[in-house]
């Protein structure tokens, strides 16, 4: 239970995939123009991708590459496995779950190429919190939830800012980065927990 709570607080707040590792900031920028439902669907797809890619890559990295001292191949192996997983998921959902396929085909490729997926797979190995396979799987889901929380917070803040009278110089990406910095600062305050 203690490990679960630690992973939960770490994944959602203190080591959030967006605000702490800065992986997936570009998704925030894209989310501004999307309706909430599409945003939630994208977050669900990304969470599923994080889970599946961790489930596939973690055993290979931990139990195959590390004992053979081939860690320098981690990135290459991760990319190859993630690509294989995505093609597999596309084919399976296309055949058996057409409704889910219609959701993932829209943004699946871009989300798969998101640094969040590769970054999390690579960082799982070096993390002190992740001591085994179940923790890695749990952490991948929690990271996805953390991503969703920040995306929703960002969406709500951005809705209010959109209506305000901002200069062209600040509107757009600079404002996205400032909002992300403030959320990062707020979440960083929970580090003591």
């Amino acid at each position, binding site marked *: 239970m203690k490990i679960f709570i630690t992973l939960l607080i770490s994944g959602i707040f203190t080591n959030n995939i967006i605000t702490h590792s800065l992986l997936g900031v*570009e998704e925030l920028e894209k989310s501004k123009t999307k309706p909430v439902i599409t945003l939630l669907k994208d977050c669900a797809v990304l969470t599923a991708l994080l889970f599946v890619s961790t489930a596939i890559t973690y055993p290979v990295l931990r139990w195959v590459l590390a004992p053979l001292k081939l860690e320098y191949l981690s990135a*290459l192996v*991760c990319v190859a496995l993630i690509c294989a997983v995505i093609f597999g998921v596309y084919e399976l959902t296309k055949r058996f779950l057409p409704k889910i396929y219609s959701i993932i085909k829209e943004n699946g490729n871009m989300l798969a190429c998101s640094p969040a997926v590769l970054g999390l797979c690579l960082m799982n190995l070096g993390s002190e919190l992740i001591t085994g396979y179940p923790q890695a799987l749990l952490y991948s889901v929690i990271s996805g939830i953390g991503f969703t929380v920040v995306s929703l917070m960002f969406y709500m803040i951005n809705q209010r800012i959109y209506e305000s009278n901002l200069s062209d110089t*600040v509107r757009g990406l600079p404002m996205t980065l400032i909002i992300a910095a403030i959320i*990062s*600062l707020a979440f*960083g305050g929970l580090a003591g927990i």
Partner: protein
Amino acid sequence: MLKDRQVYYKIILSVVPLTAVCNTALSSLIAAVISLITVASVWVLLPLLGRFLTEKTAPFVRIIIALGVIGTLTLISTMLFKDATQSIALYLPLIALTTVMLHPINENTKALPLYALKLGATLGGFGSAFLFLVGVLKELLGMGSLFGLDIYTKLFAPIEFFKTPGGALLICAALTIVYNLAVKYLGKRGAI
């Protein structure tokens, strides 16, 4: 196309993850050089391989080429600057994804190698310069030093916040605003 602000925004977004770990000017310089060489070499190699690639395979070939270049450069960099490279090594493979993020820009994969090199060097150069500037400002504001040399810590206390990822985001935002102001100013003067 190179005057398009959205293109440069995309490049800035692609280097943002690296700014989280580039805490010193030296580490950011290493990351910037690796990023520049990787992006430029991918942009040169892809047109040469263009005739053998399809729309579906091109992004993956781009990642594999980028990972090969990054792996080689990381190895060289580790031999020269072990500590600085180790602190950013985990994030370096993410540069490979930068090239995928730049994919919509690089629609014409059969462009001439020289033109592709020029374009790749311009876009890669902008990203690398941005990354280096963020590293310099992070070290200067967060640690009060530059390339390990003490600048002002005896007079003022450095602001710890700028060492954190949140600080990196704020610096990125400030630099983007400076870029926007520069574009606006140069646009008024008719320079671009």
